[in-house]
């Protein structure tokens, strides 16, 4: 069976556009009513301390809320005049906790919604399991790793597996959204099949590699749903940092009570708790889990299955990219572009001979030589002779051509192969040939040598065309500090030329899988983090060695097991997207942390004068926002502190705006927006809330 061209080997821009559209459509809008309802309910369920304890900042907030509730109850019996104030503080504190839970629940439900679209492919089907030569019908849920099943045309593949026998076209649209069927066959690099996809032709014998509930998809679903979520290293470090800050502010507010005694002030517990909750980083504490979940969610909606959250986070640290030349940097099909005749040979002679030699060649390269010949020679172009004997291309001879009935023979092929052929027939090798071959190779093209009747005529250049815009893209990557390494099977001369044209930093020419592995190890020894993409079994060691190894879904099971991500689209440029997702994830965390801490200044100015205003009236001078009363100042700060959480949910879930820039420019930008913005925004926000409260006549 003929191998179909790999579906992404030549994606034009519209192709990519279409895919992005599809992906967008699959993505739920931020606040979908259905999700909101689920998230609201979930937010309440998550109030139980066992769940809250995972998040120290919000746990302290919940304890604070519980304490003010106790104060509220005692005040109800004592009938104090502060009842309304305490009630307000209590309500806002509980609301703060609920908002935080809501943020996490919303991110989780979005993950679930993503997962559900994938899960639809997971419905249990029948499977024909091979037992002792015969076959038995069982449910796909009962499949175990290592089982062998038969899947014929029209049937659904019951679980992830590897083709052990046969070849078939498979419709994978359920997973990738791609309508064109792809070929899956035993032995090669296209042997991996995914559960839930449909065989369109022929029959496959498949060895199941993942039992029910263990496939990549299942694992990924668990990750985005939050059930199995483990904190990633950076998330853990940030949690520790936030816990430290919380502890610090616990000390600050804790010390205020005895200090108040020195001044003869008895600070009310709800006020102290209000100050504490305003100071501890509740904003980032509330959104931290949502940010992490949203990162996984973004990876999933880019059709990438990550084996862990850690991998997505690590992607942001990558500093070297190993990209295959063909299909990633270049369009992947080489085209004849120019003639280089030897001295004494005309271009027309060479064009005619090259055309004749390629008549029997059905490869894209061969066809392109015929096309170029027709263009060059116009009406003079020769036509095919039916009686000609076609010499087909083989990997051993590495040349092709044809013998005409009139005795003329034409050959074309790799430089050394054609020279050997000519030498065999006793003809001389013109000394100019070597120079021609090398100059063509140096330009990044593949030299094809043409001979007519054992006489060498010249060289046809086959060039690989760069993908449009690839250079700009690499420039952007370089601005972000990434090095791009091109991996190619071409000879060093060609590789160097293409590397130059594409603007990559380095290349591995005549690359064998072990070269890749060696390169990765060398870079890692220098402290670099490497990402690569691969599909074949022989890529597996390199995929495993790389810090981020993305296996193509079309690839072999070995490759998928070795990498730490699987790209369902099998799109080689996906690496870049994954890195951006990782960077965005970290940036969002940093930006919201900065924002959260910067907010504290304004809150201090609202609360500290308010706390001591009665005992120390001179502190009114610090009430620079001109807040109406001490009560409204504290309540306003607390309200701001609470509503900023839902207001920032969109940023947490979508991530801060990402631009490919150098570290310093990104930092300057984010410091300006989230640092300075975080410093100023609450002054305005608290003042507005205070105005609204006093207009309404509350406090």
């Amino acid at each position, binding site marked *: 069976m003929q191998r179909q061209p790999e579906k992404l080997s030549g994606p034009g821009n519209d192709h990519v556009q279409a895919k992005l559209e599809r992906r967008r459509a699959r993505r739920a809008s931020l606040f979908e009513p259905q999700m909101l309802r689920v998230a609201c309910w979930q937010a309440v369920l998550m109030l139980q301390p066992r769940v809250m304890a995972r998040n120290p900042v919000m746990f302290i907030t919940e304890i604070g809320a519980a304490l003010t509730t106790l104060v509220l109850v005692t005040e109800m019996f004592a009938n104090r005049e502060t009842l309304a104030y305490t009630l307000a503080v209590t309500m806002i504190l509980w609301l703060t906790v609920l908002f935080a839970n809501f943020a996490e629940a919303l991110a989780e439900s979005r993950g679930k919604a993503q997962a559900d679209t994938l899960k639809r492919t997971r419905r249990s089907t029948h499977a024909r399991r091979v037992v002792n030569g015969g076959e038995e019908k069982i449910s796909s849920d009962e499949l175990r790793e290592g089982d062998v099943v038969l899947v014929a045309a029209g049937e659904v593949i019951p679980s992830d597996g590897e083709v052990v026998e046969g070849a078939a076209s498979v419709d994978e649209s359920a997973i990738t959204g791609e309508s064109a069927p792809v070929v899956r066959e035993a032995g090669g690099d296209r042997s991996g099949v995914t559960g839930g996809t449909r065989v369109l032709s022929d029959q496959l014998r498949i060895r199941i590699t993942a039992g029910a509930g263990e496939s990549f998809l299942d694992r990924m679903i668990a990750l985005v749903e939050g059930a199995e979520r483990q904190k990633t290293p950076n998330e853990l*470090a940030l949690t520790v940092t936030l816990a430290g800050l919380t502890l610090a502010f616990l*000390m600050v507010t804790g010390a205020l009570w005895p200090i108040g005694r020195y001044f003869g002030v008895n600070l009310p517990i709800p006020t102290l708790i209000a100050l504490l909750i305003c100071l501890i980083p509740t904003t980032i504490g509330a959104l931290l889990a949502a940010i992490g979940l949203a990162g996984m969610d973004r990876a999933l909606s880019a059709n990438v299955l990550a084996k862990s959250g850690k991998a997505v986070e690590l992607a942001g640290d990558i500093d070297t990219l190993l990209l295959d030349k063909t299909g990633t940097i270049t369009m992947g099909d080489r085209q004849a572009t120019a003639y280089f005749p030897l001295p004494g040979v005309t271009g027309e002679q060479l064009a005619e001979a090259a055309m004749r030699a390629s008549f029997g060649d059905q490869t894209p390269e061969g066809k392109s030589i015929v096309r170029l010949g027709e263009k060059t020679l116009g009406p003079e172009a020769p036509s095919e002779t039916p009686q000609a004997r076609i010499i087909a291309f083989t990997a051993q001879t590495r040349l092709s051509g044809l013998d005409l009935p009139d005795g003329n023979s034409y050959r074309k092929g790799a430089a050394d192969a054609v020279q050997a052929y000519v030498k065999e027939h006793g003809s001389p090798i013109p000394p100019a040939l070597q120079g021609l071959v090398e100059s063509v190779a140096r330009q990044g093209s593949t030299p094809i040598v043409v001979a007519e009747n054992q006489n060498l005529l010249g060289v046809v250049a086959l060039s690989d065309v760069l993908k449009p815009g690839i250079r700009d893209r690499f420039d952007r990557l370089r601005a972000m500090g990434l090095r791009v390494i091109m991996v190619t099977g071409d000879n060093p001369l060609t590789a160097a030329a293409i590397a130059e044209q594409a603007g990559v930093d380095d290349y591995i020419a005549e690359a064998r899988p072990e070269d890749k592995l060696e390169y990765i190890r060398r870079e890692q020894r220098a402290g670099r983090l490497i990402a690569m993409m691969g599909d074949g079994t022989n890529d597996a060691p390199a995929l495993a060695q790389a810090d981020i190894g993305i296996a193509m879904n079309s690839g072999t099971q070995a490759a998928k097991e070795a990498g730490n991500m699987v790209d369902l689209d099998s799109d080689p440029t996906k690496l870049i997207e994954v890195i951006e997702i990782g960077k965005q994830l970290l940036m969002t965390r940093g930006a919201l942390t900065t924002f959260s*801490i910067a907010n504290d200044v304004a809150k201090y100015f609202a609360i500290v004068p308010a706390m001591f205003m009665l005992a120390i009236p001179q502190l009114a001078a610090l009430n620079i926002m001109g807040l109406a009363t001490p009560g409204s100042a504290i309540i306003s700060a607390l309200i701001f502190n609470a509503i900023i959480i839902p207001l920032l949910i969109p940023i947490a879930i979508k991530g801060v705006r990402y631009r490919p820039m150098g570290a310093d420019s990104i930092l300057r930008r984010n410091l300006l927006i989230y640092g300075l913005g975080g410093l100023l925004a609450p002054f305005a926000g608290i003042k507005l809330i205070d105005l609204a409260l006093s207009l309404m006549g509350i406090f």
Partner: protein
Amino acid sequence: MSIFFITLMLGGAALLSWPLGQAMTWAMSPPRQQEGFRFRIEKVLQRLGGKIIIAEQNWKQYVLALLLFNSVMFAVVFAVLALQPLLPLNPDARGAIEPSLIFHTVASFTANTNLQHYAGELTMSYFSQLFGLMWLQFVSAATGIAALTALARGLSGSSGLGNFYNDLLRATLLILLPLATTGAAILVLGGVVMTLDGAALATTIEGANQTIARGPVAAFVAIKQLGTNGGGFFGANSTHPFENPTFLTNVVECMFIMLVPMACVWMFGRLTGRLRHAAVIFLVMGALLAVKVGFANYLESAPSAAFTGLPVAAAANLEGKELRFGTAAGPTWGVLTTATSNGSVNCMHDSLNPLTGLIALTGMWFNVSFGGVGVGMINMFLYIIVGVFISGMMVGRTPEYLGRKVETREMKFALLAILVHPLLILGGTALFAATPWGAATVQDQGFHGFSEILYEFSSAAANNGSGFEGLGDNTAAWNVATAIVMLLGRFLPIILPLAIAGSLAAKKPAPATAGTLRTDTPLFGLVILGSVVFIGALLFLPVAVLGPIAEHLASGG
């Protein structure tokens, strides 16, 4: 005039710190070749130290050696002070010292704090001053330099942090001793007293008999200023005409305060091979210091609030100043001494205008505008780690410092080390303000009294040692509490950073790319400045408001 001298002092110290940094790097690094001057010196050190100084130590061994040495020193000096009546060099026959005061004093000098709840000329014999206290002034400063050296070695990736005993010898004999000897000579030339004779007896013009205390002052003052110790030979510290007789000695002593802490930044840069990074840190510290000096002089140029409405000519706040130095000398020294964890004084801090007092407090809260010898830079390292962590995420990478990833373990240690400081200050202040331990010992009620308590704990925790005064602080409660605060405030922020260094050293460094946060740019300076100011402001704003700011507002300022 005063601006000219202030600029001259700050600029002069900054200029001198550059060659001193070079010399300190030379002294603290092992000899590069197996020959030459430095190698011969190393041989001498090895003969002095014996086998113990040769073995390379990992961070745990280094910390252990540091603690062990300091414990031994603590015990030895404790014995010296306790046995004072039996020991020689006691021409004025100073008697036994109260035990809680001994505990406090030894803790204070071991911790490079030199908070003094006694007056040297009345309590200590020359032997106690020289072989108890001055000895500690040397080795506690050397401990700081050694710790910074070890930190720098860890950050440049070596898993062995060196050998503490060796570093201690190098810092003491190759840096502090020559420096202090030169310093003492300059001071003697300037008129500072240096004698082993007992107190002089004089008859005044009115015929009264006067006992004038004296002693080996110049030697003591030189290391007191250079080693950010701050403990005076006399109770009056550098306001005393025998410690600081003239305008000129005042300028020299001011420069001594800053010299070594400044040079420590350059040494850090050289040892880590990041001189540009060190320059950014130096500028940030320098900017903080310059702003504080400027504000203090401005605020102190207004008369004390007590003068408002009185028919007197408007002048700067002259209360508690030594006018022989000029009016600017008080606030300038006050800022320098609190910003560097030195703690010597040349004016009465209790008499500073409230907001000037706040600037002194701020210096001790931040404790990084050059900070103590060695430890100032170590403190800055902690702020850098926090700053790097948060801004590092903002550039979209796992935060890293000098190529090594900052993760959970590092953050845990860094935050603990940073939190020790506010815990000791706020906790101590809260405890003493709410109980008679503190509330009954203050001279003034209300805001100023609160500031007195706050200042004492800030000074102890920052290992500063200056006193706001106005506090009856030689009580068992104050002695024990501040002694504990000083020891914790000294050693935890040395141990934890070394633990971080050990942990970072074990990581593989990543080469810098355009995507890495650069540590040698003005932007990075802004990041660490922000991290110092934000952490400081957020932790201490409430107490600042209740003490100096409320006092300022209440006095109609």
